[in-house]
C-alpha cells in the first residue's frame, strides 16, 4: 500500500522504496518495509502508529541520522542515501532542525549558545533580527543566559524549537517533542510549531502518540509494521483516535 501527498506542490522531503532491516536471517526485523512518501513544503505532518511500528526509524532515516537498507531519500532536492558521513552531517546542520523528546540541549552551553549551536558549527553568522523574532515568539527573551538545568522542561523544549527554527531548515523533525510535557505546556509548544508553519512557511514532520498533539498537524500519516497504512488530512483528535483504534493501537 502506498500513500503519497499531492505530488504537484514541491516536496521538502520524499522517500521511495525505503526499507530498513535490523539483524539478519530468522531474527531480521523489518522496521521499514518499503515506504514511499513525500512531505509537501510548508506543511505540518504528524506520523502516528502503534509502538514498534517504525515511526522513529522512518524519521531517523529521513533525517540522515541512520542509513536505510534500501530505497532513496531526497531532502531539499538532494539525494542523501549516497552521501558520506561528513556530507550528511553538513546537511543536518544546514537543512534540518531537530526537536527530540528529551535531552535536547547541551548541558554545558546556555540557552542562547544552544540555539546558535548549529549555525556556529556551520561557521555561519546568525541573522540577529531573525534570532530576535524567534526568541520573542517563543518567549525566551529573559532565559537566554540560563543553562539547561536552570530551565523547566517546557522552556527546554522551546529552546530546542528555537534552535530548530533558527537555521530556517528545509524541514524540522520532532520525535515526540511534547512527550515529556504536561498538556498545557505541550499545547504551547505545539501552537508554536504550528504557527511557524503558518507564518514562516516551515515544514515540520513530527512523530507522536498523542491524538491531541496530532490535532495540531495539517495531516496525519499512519504506520503499522513498517508500512504506511493511511493518512488523515486536517485531523481532529477524535478522528485520529478512531483511526488509531482501527490500527489496533
Amino acid at each position, binding site marked *: 500500500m502506498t500513500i503519497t501527498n499531492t505530488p504537484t506542490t514541491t516536496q521538502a522531503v520524499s522517500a521511495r522504496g525505503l526499507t530498513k532491516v535490523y539483524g539478519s536471517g530468522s531474527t531480521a526485523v523489518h522496521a521499514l518495509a518499503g515506504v514511499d512518501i513525500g512531505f509537501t513544503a510548508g506543511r505540518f505532518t504528524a506520523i502516528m502508529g502503534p509502538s514498534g511500528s517504525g515511526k522513529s526509524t522512518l524519521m*531517523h532515516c529521513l*533525517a540522515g*541520522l*541512520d542509513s536505510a537498507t534500501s530505497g532513496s531519500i531526497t531532502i531539499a532536492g538532494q539525494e542523501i542515501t549516497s552521501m558520506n*558521513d*561528513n556530507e550528511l*552531517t*553538513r546537511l*543536518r*546542520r*544546514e537543512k534540518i532542525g*531537530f526537536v*527530540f523528546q528529551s*535531552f*535536547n*540541549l*547541551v*548541558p*554545558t*552551553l546556555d540557552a542562547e549558545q544552544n540555539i546558535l*549551536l*548549529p549555525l*556556529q*558549527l*556551520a561557521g555561519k553568522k546568525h541573522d540577529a533580527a531573525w534570532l530576535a523574532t524567534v526568541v520573542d515568539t517563543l518567549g525566551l527573551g529573559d532565559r537566554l543566559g540560563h*543553562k*539547561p*538545568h536552570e530551565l523547566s522542561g517546557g522552556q527546554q523544549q522551546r529552546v530546542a524549537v528555537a*534552535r530548530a527554527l533558527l537555521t530556517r531548515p528545509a524541514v524540522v523533525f520532532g520525535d515526540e517533542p511534547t512527550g515529556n510535557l504536561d498538556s498545557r505546556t505541550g499545547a504551547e509548544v505545539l501552537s508554536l510549531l504550528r504557527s511557524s508553519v503558518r507564518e514562516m512557511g516551515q515544514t515540520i514532520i513530527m512523530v507522536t502518540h498523542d491524538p491531541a498533539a496530532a490535532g495540531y498537524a495539517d495531516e496525519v500519516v499512519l504506520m503499522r509494521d513498517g508500512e504506511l497504512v493511511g493518512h488523515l488530512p486536517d485531523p481532529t483528535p477524535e478522528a485520529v483516535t478512531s483511526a488509531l483504534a482501527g490500527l489496533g493501537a
Partner: protein
Amino acid sequence: MFSLALANIRMYSRRFIAVTLAVMIGTAFLAATLMVNASTTASLERSIGEAYQNADLVAGISPDETDDSVGLGPEQLTAVRQAPGVAAAEAQSSAGARIETGSGDYNAIVQSYGSDEQLRTTKLDSGAVPAGREEITVDDQHAKTYHLKVGDEVGMSGSSADGSTVDFTARISGITTSSNSPFMGSNLQVTVSPQRYSTLIGSDPQYQSLLVRLDDGTDPAEATSAVTAALKSAGVPQASVMTAQERTVEDLAGFTGGQDQLTGVLLVFALIALVVTGLVVMNTFAVLVAQRTRELALLRTLGALSSQLRRSVLVEALVVGLVSSVLGVLLAIGVMAGLVGYVSTLPSASFAVLAVPPGAIIAGLLAGTVMTLFAAWAPARKAMSVAPLAALRPAENATVHNRVGKVRLVFGALLLLGGGGLLIAGAVLGLLLVGFAGGLFSFIGVLMLASLFLPGAVRGVGRLIGGSSVPAKLASLNSVRNPGRTTATATALLIGVTLVSMMMVGAQTTKQSFNDELARNYLVDVTVASPASYGEGFDGGAQPGPDAAPGVGQLGTEQAKLAAGVDSIEEVALLKPVGRNAAGEPVYAATAEQLARVLKDPSLVPGTGEVLVGQSTTSDDVEVTAFEGSTASSLATKHSQSEISAPLMSLETAQQLDGYTTGASAARAAAEAGPDQVGAYPLLWLKAANGLSTDQLQELSSTLAAELHVQDYQVAGGALERSLFNQVIDTLLLVVSGLLAVAVFIALIGVANTLSLSVLERTRESALLRALGLTRGQLRSMLALEAVLIAGVAAALGIVLGTAYGALGAQSALGAFTDVTLSLPWAQLALVLGVSVAAALAASVLPSRRAALLSPVEGLATE
C-alpha cells in the same frame, strides 16, 4: 551486595581496564624493586658459594680473635687433616702476581691447583693440570680476551709477604673455567702447582680458610667440634668452623649494604608511582559512582542500606585491586626474569639468578590491594550518601561542584606556607635537609590545594583557546565540567611532571654552577703535570730539567710540541717554575704571548712586573726569589678568582728576577725542594677546541697521556672535569627520569581513563551534537582537545612548580659550597611538555574513536 559488586564488575569490565593497568604497573614497580634486592643477594650468594661448593665444612679464624699472630698455616692444615672424621682438607689461599703476555701486563690472582679432586674449586676446561714449577693454567674468559692458549709462554712475577721475589717464564698447560666469585674481581685467574705456589706465598704462608671434606656418614656437628678442637690444639683458640652454606651467608653480609641503599632509593620511586596510581583509582571510582547515582538511588528506594552500598563499592575495589595486584606481581616476575636472563648472558655476570622472595609477592599484593581499597574509600562514602530521591531527579551533573573540605584547605595552606618558608630558608642558608623537608611539605600542601587552582587554570587556558571554534569551546567547557575529576586527573600528572622537571632544573643548575666554579678555578682547558712531581719515572727518570729531551724526566719544549700536535689542541703554553714566593710556593712563568693564547680569560695575562695570584692571596704585592737568586723582588699582584692556581708571571718578568737562569742546575734546585717546600716541576697549559663532547674530551685526555707518556691522572683541567661531572649528572638524571617516567605513564593512563569514562557518560550528548551537525572529525578533535587541555595545563604547572623546586633545591644543596647560578634546560622542559601533550593526544585516540563511531541514533537511544 557481593553479587551486585561482581555483576557491576562484569557489566562494566571495560571501565576497569585502565585502572587495572595503572594498579598493575604501580604494583609491579614495587614488587620488581624488592626482587632486584633479592636477586642481587641470590646472585652474590651463588657466586660466593662457588668457592665453597664441594666443602662440607669451612674453617677460619673467628672475627672475635684479637691476637694478630694467630693464623691459619701449614701446621693448622695438618692438624685439621688429622682430625677424626676428616677425609681431606685444603687451604684456601691466593697470592697476587703479574702476568706479562707481550701485549700487556696484567694483575693475576694465583691459587694452588688443589690435590684433592673434590675440594678443588677450579675446573679444568682443556689442557693439563700445571705440573712442575714452570706450568700454570689461566681462566678461559681472560684467555679469550688476552688471546692466550695452551702452550703459550708468558712472564710471571710476584713477591711474597716475606719479601722474596719470583720472576720466571711460565708455560700455559691448561685453561680453567672462569670463577664468578666477586673476590676475584677482574683479575686474571691463574693456578700453579703446589711447589710453585709455595714459592709465591713465601715461607710462612697464611691461608684465608681451610676447606674440609668429611668421611661419608660423619655427623657434621661432631666433625665441627673435632675440627675446632684440632685447631685449638694447633694454637687457634677461637676458630670459626661452619658449614659451607653458613659461611656463604656470612661472607654475603659483607657485600650487602650497598644494594640496600639502592633498594631504598627505588622504593621511594615505587612509592611515588603508587601515590599516583592511588589518584587514578580514586578518580575512576568517583566517576563510576557518579555515573551510577541513579542506579544506587534506585537500590536505596528498593531498601538497600547505605552501608550496603558502600560495601558494594568497596568489594568492587577489593576485587579490582586484588586482580590487578596479582597481574602486577606476575608482570614484575616476567620483567625481572627477562632482565636477569639478559644480564646472565653477559660474561661478567653469568651467575645472575632471579630470586622471587615471598616478601616481594606479599608486599606487592598487599600494597596494590590496600592502596586500591584506600583510594576507593572516599568514592564509596559518596555512594553511601546517595539519597533515594536522586533516582527521581533528572541526572544532571553539569554543575556538580566539588566542595573542598575546609580542613583539607586549612591544612594544605599551612603545609604550603610552612613548607615554602622552610624551603626558602633552606635555600638561603644552604641547608639541604631543611630545604628537603620544606620541599616535601610544601608540595603536599600544593597537592591538597590543587582543587583550588587546577580547574581554574584549565578553565582560564580553555577560555583563551576556546573562542575560536565550537569544538574548542565545547572542549574547554567539558574539561572543567567536573572540577573534582579534572583536579584528580591533573594532579596525578602534576606530581610526575613536577618531580621530573625539578630533577632537570636541579641537574642543569648544578652543572651550570659547577661549570662556573670550574671556569673560575681553572684558568685553562687542560693541564698536564710533570710525572716527576708524582715521584714516578718518566720513562727512565733522568735528571729533571725544563728543557730536557722527551722521555727523560720532566715536561719540556719537546712535550709542548707533541701536545701541540694532538688533534683538538689549539694552543700550548709551557709553564716553568722560576722561583718561590715568601711562603715557599713555586712561582711559574711562560711567555706573555703563549699565556694570552691559552688563558680562557686573556685579560688575566700578567703584565711586566706583575704576578697573577689566586683567590687566597689578598695582598697587593708578593715577594719572589729566583731558584738560584738571593734577593727577593717585590712584584705587584694581579688577582684571579681561582682557588687552585699557582702564582704565575710572564717570562719577561721572570728574566728580570735576580739570579734567574734556565740551566739544569736551576731546574734541579726547583725539583729538589727544601725541607719545608714542595718540588716544583713544569706544567703544560693547553687550550682545547670548543664544543668537544664528553667522549671526545675523554679521548683527548687519553691521547695526550699516551703521546706525552704520562699517566692519565696527570692530565686534568676545567674542560675535562666539567665533562666528567656533566656525564655523571646526566646519567643520574636519565636514571631518575626513567624511574619517574613510570609515575608519569600511570598518570597518563589516568588521563585516558577519565576521558573514556566521561565519553561513556556523555554518549547521549555526543549523539545530540552529532545530530545537530558536529562532524565525526570535530567530535574527535573536541575530545582530543579536552585531554590536551587537562594534560597540558597540568604539565605546564608541573614544570613551573618543578622549576621553582629545582632552583630552590639546588640552592639548598649547593649554596653552602659554591655560588649557584640558576640555569633552565629549556629544551628538556619543552620536551616534557611536548611528551605530556602528545601522550594526552594519544590517550584520547581510543575514547574519541569509540565516540565518533557510535551512530547518533544509537547514542540517542542510550539511557
